[in-house]
């Protein structure tokens, strides 16, 4: 074991836009899109929501479930591709909103495309094990921008999750992180230059040499180190650029029972939360977990890299599940909007 999870929380905005709505605008065939992506709709943040507000809701629930004195939180690291500021960490806004103690607090913003959140987790684990902090908040959240008419427009969504982490064996642990393995290369599958509003990507290039290569490698490393077979795990959470990729990577990793892959429902209904994707997946796995269950999670960040986690659930999970909202409650609350409202909420319409 390397660290405990004491609390977790997720948040997904209530607005949704269906694939049909987007397809209509660009004259595409919605059925082909849905079949190709295994995505039906995606979440859309309201005009007053952003990565900080999503992170706030997730963090509040995580702290409540952890039941700790929040003045002992020594780090609030947020991983995102859509931090509100290019320079001024999202964690500082959370510090004032959550009323965190300024003394001994760290609050950097993390970036590694969609795996910024899992990098944040590792950094917090490092600080805990160095004895520099008692507890830390690691968050992954995004309000992704999809370039209008780009295929990614169907999946670039908004959501996030937060984790209160503590030293291994903590009495308030609801789960323990057994181990984490990472695999990183210089692979330019998807990127955004400073100041550019939308990212560039190599369409099919984001599949084989990027997503699949890195996840398969990080998971292999993890399983080798732990000496386990993948099907010993009860649930799986994968970074979800779309449902097809998740299903395929699960198959290629040899997972026999696809119903254990909790990410599939999330991405089908709500799309890709980018830095929030894997973390919301882990939250859903925890929602459904019983004490003793094992969870395998693997993130993927373009650029590129993957972090794979092995998590063991403890008894206290039963007690905290009823505090806060399950991911399924967010999945099921949906207010559908049309493309015009979507354009307005996403700030695509130039008003000044």
């Amino acid at each position: 074991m390397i660290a405990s999870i004491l609390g977790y929380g997720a948040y997904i905005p209530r607005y949704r836009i269906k694939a049909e709505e987007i397809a209509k605008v660009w004259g595409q065939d919605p059925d082909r899109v849905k079949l190709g992506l295994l995505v039906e709709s995606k979440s859309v943040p309201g005009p007053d929501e952003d990565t900080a507000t999503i992170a706030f809701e997730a963090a509040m629930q995580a702290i409540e479930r952890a039941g700790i004195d929040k003045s002992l939180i020594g780090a609030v690291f947020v991983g995102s591709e859509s931090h509100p500021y290019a320079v001024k960490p999202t964690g500082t806004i959370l510090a004032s909103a959550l009323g965190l103690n300024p003394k001994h607090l760290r609050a950097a913003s993390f970036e590694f495309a969609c795996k910024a959140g899992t990098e944040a987790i590792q950094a917090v684990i490092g600080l805990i094990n160095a004895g520099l902090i008692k507890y830390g908040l690691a968050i992954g959240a995004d309000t992704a921008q999809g370039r209008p008419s780009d295929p990614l427009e169907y999946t670039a969504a908004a959501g996030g999750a937060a984790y209160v982490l503590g030293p291994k064996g903590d009495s308030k642990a609801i789960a323990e992180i057994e181990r984490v393995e990472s695999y990183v290369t210089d692979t330019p599958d998807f990127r955004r230059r400073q100041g550019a509003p939308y990212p560039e990507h190599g369409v099919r290039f984001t599949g084989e040499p990027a997503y699949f290569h890195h996840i398969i490698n990080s998971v292999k490393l993890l399983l080798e180190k732990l000496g386990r077979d993948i099907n010993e795990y009860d649930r799986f959470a994968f970074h979800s650029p779309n449902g097809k990729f998740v299903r395929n990577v699960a198959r290629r990793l040899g997972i026999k029972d696809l119903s254990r892959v909790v990410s599939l429902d999330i991405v089908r209904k709500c799309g890709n939360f980018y830095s929030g994707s894997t973390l919301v997946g882990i939250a859903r796995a925890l929602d459904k977990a019983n004490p003793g269950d094992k969870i395998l999670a693997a993130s993927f960040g373009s650029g590129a890299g993957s972090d794979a986690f092995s998590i063991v659930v403890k008894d206290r999970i039963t007690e905290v599940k009823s505090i806060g909202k399950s991911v399924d409650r967010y999945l099921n609350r949906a207010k559908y909007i049309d493309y015009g409202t979507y354009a307005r909420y996403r700030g695509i319409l130039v008003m000044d």
Partner: protein
Amino acid sequence: MGIIEGTFPPRYRREVKYRNAFVGWRCKKCGRVFYTPRKRCECGSREIEEIELPREGRVVTRTVVRNPPKGYEKYAPYAIAIIELDVDGQKVRVLGQLADVDLDKIRTGMRVRATLRRIRAGRRGLIEYGVKRVPIEE
């Protein structure tokens, strides 16, 4: 032009604790709780402490703003309400904007809770956050 053009950093820093977290005041002498600052309570005491207010409350009255002040256009129409909290038995009222609610479904008496949302942001300058209220049922 004061608050209208977006807050200048010194003011932002001074107010951010009160805007982003849900902080109010209580007179140590008479116990009255209020949600605007004052240096001297009506009872005469200067001993006033900051307290964290409960996040949940009930809508007492509400309206929908259709002609927003400058800077709020991108959020209009939006709902404003006066919400009543219970602070250790004392009924305290606060004002706030509602979010995540269909405008035609707002009812007096509905229960809401505090969350963090953007209040105002231009293309440049500081992004200003604050407490807004979302329905509890969701």
